[in-house]
């Protein structure tokens, strides 16, 4: 059947089950936007292409489905490089379609031309410049297949204008839809393996059964593999304590007795120390990131390592595993459960009461803490805002954050009890992530309450997407923790640069966040004292016809603790100042 490339592209997206596109049209992609009018696909018109990319990511984080962004060539393509890199670092399934100048103009420095495929090569799982209209359906099928299988990631498809423009004879083609077998045959070098090696799985089970100080080190791969239930079954069968990394918050419920919380640079003392003292780390879909390990030569010195990952390149990249298993986390955990059961299950576990006692001792002595203020006294504590937000919102609320202090406090103080409720930029650390990501999450899960927790620095990077949210009636809620500083940078300058503050001050009232939010069509409130916090949150929770922004004026001196200083080992973790004396006493005793 005769069709043009632009129609084929939209039809291919429909066939892939795409319900929403985040994008912004422009010259080179114009012919694709025309057939979009006749398509049931919803288009969310962003105000900056970076927003489209982060929305697609937020959508994918919240739903587990591919997020799709579509933008034009040149500056639009370069604007979406940051979200592509973000998605690459955090293994987010995403497909990005970019317009390109006509084939005949490629290489001539044409208007709005850039080498999109060249620029994005190192920040995508794969990318492709399509050169013929008849290749479009296959390119789209390959993109979705690659983005969602193996280790998920972003795939970019670059489409020259001439092959989608009905005025150009090069756009004429006959529609066809490749079969699964044809797609697989078209990618001879791509064969992700999902099933773990049974011999290795049995070795892992035997290691678990011998360990007296085990810790499950659960990473984002648990969520990507939809393995939260399997993880819980594993932890409960063998009574194994679990740490959840920044990318895995929610993969194991924080209120579960076996949950130790988040490890790493700003993890809690028990999670960090449990990993340090463990005799076995069961790494599931985690990658020994430097923010988790601290100084590598001092990391978990006595631990044997079981490392499960779908990406073979992660095994041994940072820390040599004793048992390496390539495979999908869910499938491997399920096989591991069978292997453990065959070896005696819970009855075969050694006595770990001393370990349990040690863990609960740490938890009791070094819980997360901050200096609480009386109502009306001083600036609002950011941690308090998060505790109140957590208490006053539904348990399955989705929370998205930017990057910096507010991100760490959110991860620490938000009690995550459901998978897919935490949306953040872990690997790349992209400031400005939260607002577009929250919008994408809300589009994907309109049934859920979605809060963006933002810093004042982050807010100024992507706030314009609140115009998108207002125009498209996407009622997200935003909490700006306004401490008038680039807070995390300030913290480092205070602690490691002798309080020499260099270019970190932002001002509390320039811009006026309330007026700005109102100008973008949002409801807006300002909270300046502790006793106003609850009322503002409750009011925000009741507004569902437009986005709402609360600016909390928070204490700029507040720092994120615990903290493992950069370059130091995890055994040198610093706890809250109120706990330092006790920690020093324990360390002196060599406990």
């Amino acid at each position, binding site marked *: 059947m005769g069709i043009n490339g632009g129609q084929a592209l939209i039809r291919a997206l429909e066939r892939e089950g795409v319900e929403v596109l985040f994008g912004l049209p422009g010259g080179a992609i114009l012919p694709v936007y025309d057939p979009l009018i006749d398509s049931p696909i919803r288009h969310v018109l962003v105000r900056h292409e970076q927003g489209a990319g982060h929305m697609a990511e937020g959508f994918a984080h919240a739903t587990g489905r591919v997020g799709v962004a579509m933008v034009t060539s040149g500056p639009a393509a370069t604007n979406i490089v940051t979200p592509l890199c973000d998605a690459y670092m955090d293994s987010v399934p995403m497909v990005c379609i970019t317009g390109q100048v006509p084939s005949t103009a490629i290489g001539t420095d044409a208007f709005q031309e850039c080498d999109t*495929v*060249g620029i994005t*090569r*190192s920040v995508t*799982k*794969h990318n492709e*410049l399509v050169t013929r209209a008849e290749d479009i359906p296959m390119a789209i099928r390959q993109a979705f297949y*690659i983005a969602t299988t193996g280790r998920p990631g972003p795939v970019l498809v670059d489409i020259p204008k001439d092959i989608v423009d009905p005025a150009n004879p090069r756009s004429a083609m006959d529609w066809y839809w490749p079969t699964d077998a044809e797609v697989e045959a078209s*990618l*001879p*070098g*791509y064969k992700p393996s999902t099933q773990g090696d049974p011999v290795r799985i049995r070795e892992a089970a035997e290691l678990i059964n011998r360990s007296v100080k085990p810790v499950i080190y659960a990473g984002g791969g648990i969520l990507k593999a939809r393995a939260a239930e399997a993880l819980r079954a594993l932890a409960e069968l063998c009574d194994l304590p679990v740490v959840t990394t920044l990318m895995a918050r929610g993969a194991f419920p924080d209120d579960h007795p076996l949950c130790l919380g988040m490890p790493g640079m700003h993890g809690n003392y028990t999670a960090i120390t449990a990993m340090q003292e463990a005799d076995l780390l069961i790494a599931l879909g985690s990658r020994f990131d430097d923010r988790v390990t601290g100084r590598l030569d001092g990391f978990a010195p006595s631990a044997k390592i079981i490392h499960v990952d779908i*990406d*073979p*390149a992660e095994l*041994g*990249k940072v820390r040599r595993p004793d048992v390496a298993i390539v495979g999908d986390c869910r499938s491997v955990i399920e096989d591991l459960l069978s292997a453990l059961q065959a070896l005696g299950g819970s009855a075969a576990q050694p006595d770990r009461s001393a370990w349990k006692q040690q863990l609960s001792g740490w938890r009791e002595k070094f819980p997360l803490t901050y200096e609480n203020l009386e109502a009306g006294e001083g600036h609002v504590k950011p941690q308090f805002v998060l505790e109140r937000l957590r208490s006053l919102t539904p348990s399955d609320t989705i929370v998205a954050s930017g990057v910096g202090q507010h991100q760490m406090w959110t991860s620490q103080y938000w009690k995550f009890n459901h998978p897919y409720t935490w949306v953040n930029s872990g690997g790349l650390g992209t400031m400005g992530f939260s607002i577009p990501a929250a919008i994408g999450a809300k589009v994907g899960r309109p049934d859920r309450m979605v809060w963006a927790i933002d810093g004042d620095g982050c807010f100024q990077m992507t706030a314009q997407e609140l115009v998108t949210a207002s125009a498209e009636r996407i009622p997200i809620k935003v909490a700006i923790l306004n401490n008038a500083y680039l807070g995390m940078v300030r913290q480092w300058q205070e602690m490691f640069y002798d309080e020499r503050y260099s270019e970190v001050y932002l001002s509390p009232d320039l811009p006026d966040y309330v007026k700005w939010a109102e100008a973008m069509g949002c409801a807006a409130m300002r909270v300046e004292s502790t006793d106003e916090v609850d009322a503002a949150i409750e009011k925000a929770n009741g507004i569902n016809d437009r986005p709402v922004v609360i600016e909390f004026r928070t204490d700029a001196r507040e720092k994120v603790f615990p903290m493992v200083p950069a370059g130091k080992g995890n055994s040198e973790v610093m706890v809250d100042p109120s706990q330092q004396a006790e920690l020093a006493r324990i360390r002196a005793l060599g406990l």
Partner: protein
Amino acid sequence: MHSYHTLVVLVENKPGVLARVAGLFARRGFNIHSLAVAPTEDERISRITIVADTESAPVEQIVKQLDKLINVVRIDELAPRDSVEQELLMASVQASVGERSKVLELCQIFSAKVLDTGTQEMMVRLAGSPAKLDDFEQLLRPLGISAIQRTGRVALPRLDHGSSGASLRSVS
């Protein structure tokens, strides 16, 4: 002392694939010692022979990262003793009329070929093992090399002589 591994990488014969491979090495901080690319007997597939510096990164990590490229179909790692490696050298050497015999003598010893003779220079060619080329280059140098070009090595697994085991280790 650097240590090198020869990787024979079969890739889809498509535009940009060499850039993906080279870009991966640059991005991950792996060093390429030499590189040779050519189509294979199957026109859909090209063979890239990479001599990788394994001081810069463990060869296992280099191979695993290469294998993640969608267009990489197969990677074989060739240990020097299990492979036959060849390289080509061309050089222009100072040789005035009276001094040509010095160049010719070296060419004779190494079985190199004279490709061109000018009034002041001679152009020579030698194909052989990288070590043989090193020796030849060393001996040409005192005569005065005005231009030299080496191709980078290509390699194939040593053939079965009916004695020992496998000559090549498939790693993907």
